[in-house]
């Protein structure tokens, strides 16, 4: 965005401090616009005609450096791009890299349906939410427009996920667009050779389109030409070569394009970038090796600037690290990952239920909490204030101590001797060395749980209820 202080934004706001946006002053609202935690549309007065000119000006000035492109419709719509910085600590990255997994039009129908369902149904629990994947990319392998359109139709019937149509043949693309034009699919791709016909499709069907060329001059030519034609929902694929010097150059192209787009404000190429880690399969035929290398390519380009990518491997050992790395890079570094310290009930604990200790690092807390609740273990779970540091590091660094544990129960008014029949605390296995201290400070019995909360169910079977002394 072109503005960098709340004061600059303030000049364009109504300056009436009406507080309708939820902030007390227009200046405060301006600060939220700068850090992108609020939208201009959250200000009802500026939407009035009186401020129309300023609204339009401000809208332009606040627009992200990299254009945001919308794919799909309805509840599964995905935005890609929209970034304003080249390092996440400078603000945060927006719109996590969209993962599109491929299917192809020569697949037997049932296989196609199964694969689409596998893509749609993938989920991995993480910090209070499920990590999922986003899109289905349909590749035209047959070269037959009818066949391609048929596969696209089948996919559209099977899933609500946004769709990417992949073919360099405008005839095939047109046939597929006829089938799914209502779904606002992403069209892949226009090249030096087919650009004129593909541009026409983008104009007629009003769909976003990918431009593909590993030659950055040509890619920029394509982008400039499409813009001239009024097509602005563009995505750039600068080529993802799977190995050797070509891969190094691919990496450099992503870095160059993003730097030019954000740091140098080169509007012609300030579009979302697409990477094709699937190309790992062009050089590796063995499924494990190819899946590994595809994950490696995906990782490189998740970190360095791909806004959308097309992947092939549905092996969990490929998908799990991919969804986790994307979450890693796109997590907002401004949001502390802590939960409120205190003693919480999991399920419906009684006086005989265990009291389990963990830290207030959100990841640890949610992991333990989900392990307990999903295994139906009723208990009290204490989140000790360790400044959001995990168990092992907090024990080493002195943020998890006997005194802190005692303090957590005192502040929560949780008198263990009254609230339980067993007067026992369970420490995480990784905090075993605190056992003596905690016994001394609290006067309670202290048991040592497993080092990983995933093993609490087995541990409970063996150790709970505690044997009488």
């Amino acid at each position, binding site marked *: 965005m072109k503005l960098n202080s709340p004061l600059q934004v303030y000049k364009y706001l109504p300056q009436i401090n009406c507080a309708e946006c939820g902030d007390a002053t227009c200046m405060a609202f301006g600060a939220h616009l700068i850090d992108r935690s609020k939208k201009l549309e959250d200000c009802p007065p500026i939407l009035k005609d009186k401020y129309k000119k300023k609204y339009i000006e401000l809208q332009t000035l606040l627009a992200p450096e990299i254009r945001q492109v919308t794919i799909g419709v309805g509840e599964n719509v995905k935005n890609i791009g929209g970034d304003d910085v080249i390092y996440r*600590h400078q603000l945060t990255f927006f719109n996590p890299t969209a993962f599109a997994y491929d299917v192809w039009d020569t697949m037997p129908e049932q296989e196609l349906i199964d694969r689409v369902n596998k893509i749609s149904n993938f989920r991995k629990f993480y910090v209070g939410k*499920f990590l999922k994947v986003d899109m289905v990319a349909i590749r035209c392998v047959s070269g037959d427009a009818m066949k391609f359109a048929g596969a696209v139709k089948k996919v559209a019937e099977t899933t609500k996920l946004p769709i990417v149509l992949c073919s360099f043949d405008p005839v095939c693309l047109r046939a597929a667009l006829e089938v799914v034009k209502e779904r606002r699919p992403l069209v892949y791709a226009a090249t030096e050779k087919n650009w004129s016909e593909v541009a026409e499709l983008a104009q007629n069907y009003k769909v976003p389109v990918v431009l593909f060329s590993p030659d950055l001059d040509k890619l920029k030519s394509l982008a400039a030409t499409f813009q001239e034609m009024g097509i602005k929902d563009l995505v750039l694929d600068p080529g993802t070569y799977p190995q050797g010097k070509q891969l190094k150059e691919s990496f450099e192209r992503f870095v160059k394009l993003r730097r030019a787009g954000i740091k140098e404000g080169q509007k012609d190429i300030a579009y979302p970038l697409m990477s094709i880690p699937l190309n790992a*399969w062009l050089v590796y035929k063995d499924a494990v090796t190819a899946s590994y290398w595809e994950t*490696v390519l995906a*990782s490189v380009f998740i970190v360095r600037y791909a806004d959308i990518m097309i992947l092939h491997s549905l092996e969990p*050992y490929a998908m799990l690290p991919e969804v986790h*790395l994307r979450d890693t890079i796109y997590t907002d570094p401004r949001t502390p990952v802590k939960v409120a310290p205190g003693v919480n009930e999991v399920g419906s604990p009684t006086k005989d239920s265990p009291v389990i200790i963990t830290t207030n690092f959100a990841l640890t807390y949610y992991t333990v909490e989900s392990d307990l609740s999903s295994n139906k273990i009723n208990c009290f779970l204490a989140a000790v204030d360790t400044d959001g540091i995990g168990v092992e590091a907090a024990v080493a660094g002195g943020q998890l101590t006997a005194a802190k544990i005692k303090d957590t129960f005192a502040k929560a008014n949780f008198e263990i001797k009254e609230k339980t029949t067993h007067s026992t605390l369970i420490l995480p296995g990784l905090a075993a060395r605190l056992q003596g201290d905690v016994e001394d400070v609290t006067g309670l019995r202290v048991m040592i749980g497993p080092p990983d909360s995933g093993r609490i169910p087995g541990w409970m079977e063996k150790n709970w209820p505690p044997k009488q002394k």
Partner: protein
Amino acid sequence: MTKKIKLSELGSLFGGLDIEALEGVKIEGDVELDLGQMGLNPQMAYALGHETAQMAFHLMNISRILGYPIDQMLGSPAQQKPVRPSKLIESKFGVARNEDWKTPIQEVVLGATSSDGGSRKSTVTLGGEVALPYYFDGPMPHRNHITMDVFDMPINMAKAVKSNYEDVINSPAEWAKKVVRDFGADMVTIHLISTDPNIKDTSPKEAAKTVEDVLQAVDVPIVIGGSGNPEKDPAVLEKAAEAAEGERCLLASASLNLDYARIAEAAKKYNHVVLSWTQLEINAQKELNRKLMKQCGVARENIIMDPTTAALGYGLDYAYTNMERIRLAGLSGDLELNFPMSSGTTNAWGARESWMVSSPLKEDTDWGPREYRGPIWEIVTGLTLSLAGNDLFMMMHPTAVQVLKEITQTLYGSKETEPVNIDDWVSAVV
């Protein structure tokens, strides 16, 4: 004469395209819309917008009938044929090098050959970068290196890791030989964990003997790691440093919560390099580096940093950004942060996804075989940090080492392969 019209009048005025009614009416840009009575709820606004657009449409038609070149004036896309250039607009893409990066990262040599008073066959040089890793802004003089973990006693390991070391688990020297000979380790890290008073309380003297054994067994540079016990480590590293005099080992580690000055002193006295370890805190890293240099007198070419590695899914976001900030600060001239970095990539094996048989949560999609999950967890953790600027990786799994080497050396530019044509990837049969 000019007559002002209001919205409410417009409808009746042009209701039947009554062109005669236009006589004497000058329509100005400031058509006055009296909305006072109506309020402005969204529905009403929409209806009004619609009404106004209709009017505008009629007015345009009128102008057209009157022979005014309205389409030209509006450039109206709805009325015009879309632009269809016959050829691509010629363009040249260019982007500038980053001018903020003026300070190179300190070069640090690990290991010493006989000509330099040691007994290593080869040395490893880290640092020297003038840009973020693999960027086009400037040459990256040294590739990433990998040092593989060896422990001075059998420890708990994930099954996928353990199966590689069962034959050497009781002999650090054999273990060290194996990682260099079979797994391509550039260096070896000997972790003296048995010295922890809560484990075996091995004496510093005995631990130093283990270090000598490892130095005998391999001729690559080594890292000497303590047990992580802050009371015991200074004494252990001191003795080990003495035993390895002149070998330019990396002493792991000096940190703010132990007597770092003793470790710094040992490094100076016996010619070693200090690993400056802090926990995910850029300011603490600055502080410790400053203390090592100013207070302890450690030379710049004898410092490497370990800003802490958290595993993928377990705080890698902090580790990544911390390293990236440290590297950017160093390149931009912060002389307390422009040192090479080392990562305890083995920490990836702490992530349950790397070792657990299956997800403890029934809602999760099946996690698949763990033999494949573990190494890739280690690879992705390391690779992510390599992109943030990490130079040296402490690792455990042979496959992870091999793959990380392949990708980092590819991005570094030393991997030659046959060119691949990706132009038809869409129709590839995979």
